[in-house]
Structures are given as C-alpha cells and as structure tokens.
C-alpha cells in the first residue's frame, strides 16, 4: 500500500492526463452514440417492426466481445482514437435507443392529441412537447450508456486508444512486479472514480435540463 501511495505521488501528472484522455474518449463516444440513437429512436418509435429491428441490431452490437470488435476495426481504421471511438459508439447505442423509444411511447396520447388539436405541426409537437416529456427517460439511458462505455473504454488501449486502459494493460503485462500492481490498480481505481463522478455530474445535468413541472 505504501508503495502504491508513493507511485501516485510520483506519477500523478501522468494519471491526470490519462484520466482526462479517458473522459475525452468516453464523452465523445457517448455524444455521438446519443445523437445517433435519439435520431434513430425518433424515426422508429411510432412503428412496431422497424423499432424492434433497430433494437435488435443495437443489442447484437452489445453482445460482440469487445476485444474482437476493437481488433476488427484495425484493418479499416488503424490504431488509436478512430477504432476506439467507433467501437464505443456501437456499445453505447442500445441504452439510449431503448430509452428514447420507451420514453416517447410512454407519453399520454391525450397530451399529443391536444398538441395536434391546437395546431402544432408534427415537428413542433415533437420538439416542444414529446422530447421534453421523454427527456428524463432519455437522460437515464445516456447515464447507463456512459457507465457502460467507461469500463469498455479501458480495452481501447489494446488498439492503442487513449485513457486509463493504458495503465491497466501495462500493469497486466508486468504482473507479479510491484510496479505492475500499481499500474493496474491506478487504472482500475481511476475508472471507478470516474464512474462515480460522471454519474453525479450527469444526474445534475438531467435535473437541470428537466422541466420543474416534471420533478417529483
């Protein structure tokens, strides 16, 4: 334990850099995944078959072993940032997509009918009424997606992606040595720390971006 503490003292600038890179790649991936999933969700939530089909595809993405998926992109996208983000986006789609569809479907039809009855176009009803009402549910999907991606992002180091995974992989390579344990432990604890912080931050964002009329 003493050794680990000394390691932290000596390497903290490096750890901060890795943590920031990790947040960066996760945030980028969640943002892209959310944009895609919300757009697709809006497109399919009124339908039965297409909604089921897109959910099935997002489900399949999530079942592909992450090592395999990262490696599969090397021939096409090379190493580093691009394959990492691409794989993480694929993993992040399902929670947001599912919650977008569920959130939009769970709105009281009478509310949408009165919006249309007052003369809102379908686009106005979507932007002003349906999305704000579904937003808390969509936000929950984004939070789940963030936590999911946060862990998987570590494996991005396998294709030379950025973040705390670098420490974990180098640590595992030197397992048995004191430094190896320090590296693996710092990477793992860093991710746990990020999970707590990001969930709190997103919880706050969700609260701030949800209408007071919808707060419990």
């Amino acid at each position: 334990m003493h050794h680990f503490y000394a390691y932290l003292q000596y390497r903290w600038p490096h750890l901060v850099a890795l943590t920031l890179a990790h947040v960066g790649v996760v945030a980028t991936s969640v943002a892209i995944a959310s944009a895609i999933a919300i757009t697709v969700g809006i497109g399919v939530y009124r339908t039965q078959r297409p909604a089921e089909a897109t959910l099935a595809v997002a489900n399949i993405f999530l079942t592909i072993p992450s090592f395999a998926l990262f490696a599969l992109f090397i021939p096409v996208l090379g190493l580093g940032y691009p394959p990492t983000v691409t794989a993480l986006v694929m993993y992040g789609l399902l929670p947001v997509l599912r919650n977008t569809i569920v959130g939009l479907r769970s709105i009281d039809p009478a509310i949408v009918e009165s919006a249309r009855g007052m003369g809102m176009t379908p686009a106005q009803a979507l932007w002003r009424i349906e999305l704000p009402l579904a937003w808390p549910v969509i936000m929950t999907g984004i939070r789940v997606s963030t936590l999911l991606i946060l862990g998987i992002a570590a494996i991005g180091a396998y294709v030379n992606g950025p973040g705390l995974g670098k420490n974990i992989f180098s640590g595992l390579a030197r397992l048995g040595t004191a430094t190896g344990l320090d590296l693996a432990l710092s990477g793992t604890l860093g991710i746990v720390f990020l999970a707590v912080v990001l969930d709190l931050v997103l919880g706050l964002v969700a609260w701030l971006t949800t209408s007071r009329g919808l707060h419990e």
Partner: protein
Amino acid sequence: MSSPAQARPMIRLEALSKRFAHQRRLAVDNLTLDIYAGEIVVFVGPSGCGKTTTMKMINRLIEPTSGEIYLEGDNVTHVNPNRLRRHIGYVIQQIGLFPHMSIADNIAVVPRMLGWDKARIGRRVDELLHMMGIPAHEYRHRYPKALSGGQSQRVGVARALAADPPVLLMDEPFGAIDPITRKHLQDEFLRIQGEVRKTIVFVTHDIDEAIKMGDRIAVLREGSHIAQYDTPEQILTHPADDFVRALIGGSATLKRLALSRVGEAVLQSVPTAREGADTEHADGLLLIDAQGHPQRWADDTDARAIVTVSADATLQEALDALLLAPRGRAVVVDAHGAYQGVVDFDTVAGYVRHSAASLAQGEAQTQ
C-alpha cells in the same frame, strides 16, 4: 334561441363520410348538419355512434373520406389543417395539459404560434385565469401537477379560448370529473358562454348533460345518422322515434323541469305583511321584513317552516325543495332574497301542461 333559418351557418357539414381502414361500415355516413354562430350544439348518442369521429373531422384530426366542411362559409376541407386548428378551440376529456409547461405557458401556446407579442399574451393569460376563477398571481407560474381535476379542466378551457377562436370543440369535457364538480363546471361554463358567445360543438353520451348544455341537440345513431336535431324542449316533448325515446329514458317530464326557471312559471301570490303588524295570526299570511325578506308564515311561529327557492333555480330544483317543504309550498325570492311569490305543486304541474301545449301549438303553426 336565435332563429337559424335566415343566418349563414358558422359550421356546415355537407354529405360528410368517414370510412376507417380495414372497416366495412362507414363510421360516419353521409352526414349533413348546420351549426349557427353562438349556439351550443350537443352531439349525443351511444358509444360507437360516430359522434367523436364527426367532431374530430371539423378540426380535421380525422380526415373525411368524402364530403365538405365549411367554416364561416369557407370550404376548409382541404386547407392546411395546422393553421385551421389554431382558430378552433379544442377541449378533451383527458384535458391533456402539458405537464412540463407552466400554467401560463400552457394557455399561451396558440397565441405564441399566432405571433402575439409578449405583453398581449400576458394580459390574455391573466384575463382568462380570472374568468375561470383561478387566482392568476398564485397559479400563473405553477405547473399542472399543482391543479385539482376541476382546476385542470378550467385551465383546459382557458387554453382552448386563448386566441379567442370563434369555434370550440369539446369532447366529453366534464366526463372524467366527479358529479359535484361537474355540475359546478357546467354551470360555470354556461355562465362563461353567456359572455363569450362561442359556437360550440359538444360531444357527450349523457343525455342529461346534453339537455342542460345544449341550445340544440343532435341525437346520433350508428354511422352518425341524425335521429333528431332539435331543441332540448322539442326532443323531450316530441321525441322523433323509439331510439330517441329510449335515449331520453323514462322521465322526460322530470328532465324538462330542468330546462325551466322558477321565475318563468306563473307564481302564486299570498298576502304579505310587515312583521309586528296586528294581522299577525291570519291564515296564509307571509311576514316579511323591511327589505322584503320573508321571515315566517303568520300561522306558524317556527321560522324553519319557511322554505325558499331562488327565482333562478330550475323547476326541477324547486320540485325537489317542495317535496320536503311543509304544506308543499315554497317562497320564491329574487337575487337579493326579497319575496316574489310562492311556488307549489300546482304551479309546477300547471307550467308543465302549459309549456307542452304551447310547444304543440308552435309545432302546428310551423307545419
């Protein structure tokens, strides 16, 4: 009631039909109907008769399969439905307030779409909340979750009236509300309608509500076929057929009493005297005070033996009071509580016989 014969209808439905996909029967079958400015027309009929479908074709939430819709003489069957709807108020049973918007923002939706300026919208919101009896300063910035059922429906009506549309469509607006609040909202709505004079299409399956709210009632049977389209009085006294008779139920005469006010009946008069006069023990003498407020019957020292009804009460309410009143008589008072006359069972029965006779006579003249 205005005489519809000469005016141009506010709403005209012409040979309107609707067939839903995968259904053999027409939901609405060749309906032609005129609705005039300032009247409340109630569509009443059993569930599935097409009354709601018919109403939703007026603002084109349901597109007609064939036929034409005219609003103030203009054919609106093919105009942009979104723009059309901004000029037709819409109230539904489930109310459908937007929970994420403040009450003021809910009411402001249509005025904002129409591009009103902020100050005008603010004034209009306050005016409508005041009209609905909801304290504007307290509720303006609160959210729908803070409202009771009755208040929600009031805000729903305020929202529909926001841009002052000439036409209001109401689909069972008081259907989901408890009976006491419902009666209150109905009375209040009739009072507001007295001020705003909108053309209203009101859908209900409750014949009593139809009789109370309607200037005219369209009794609809399956396929939105008109069984009878007439005033409540005519429908109650001269139901067109067994279908209408069955819908009215067994107590048409009692229902008719709800249509007339005590003040419209020929009241009995009794001798009155100021309290303390020397005639004090005479039979049938009513003692009143300086303002004309009835105090007690001269031959009965108990002031509780006096039953009063307002001249504004319906004959049905008067009859209800008479059933419990000593000697079967009640004192009619005006809005200030002053003596106007006396109503008894003979008064009510006489009014029923007289109005039936005059309706029959009126009908004989028009035929």
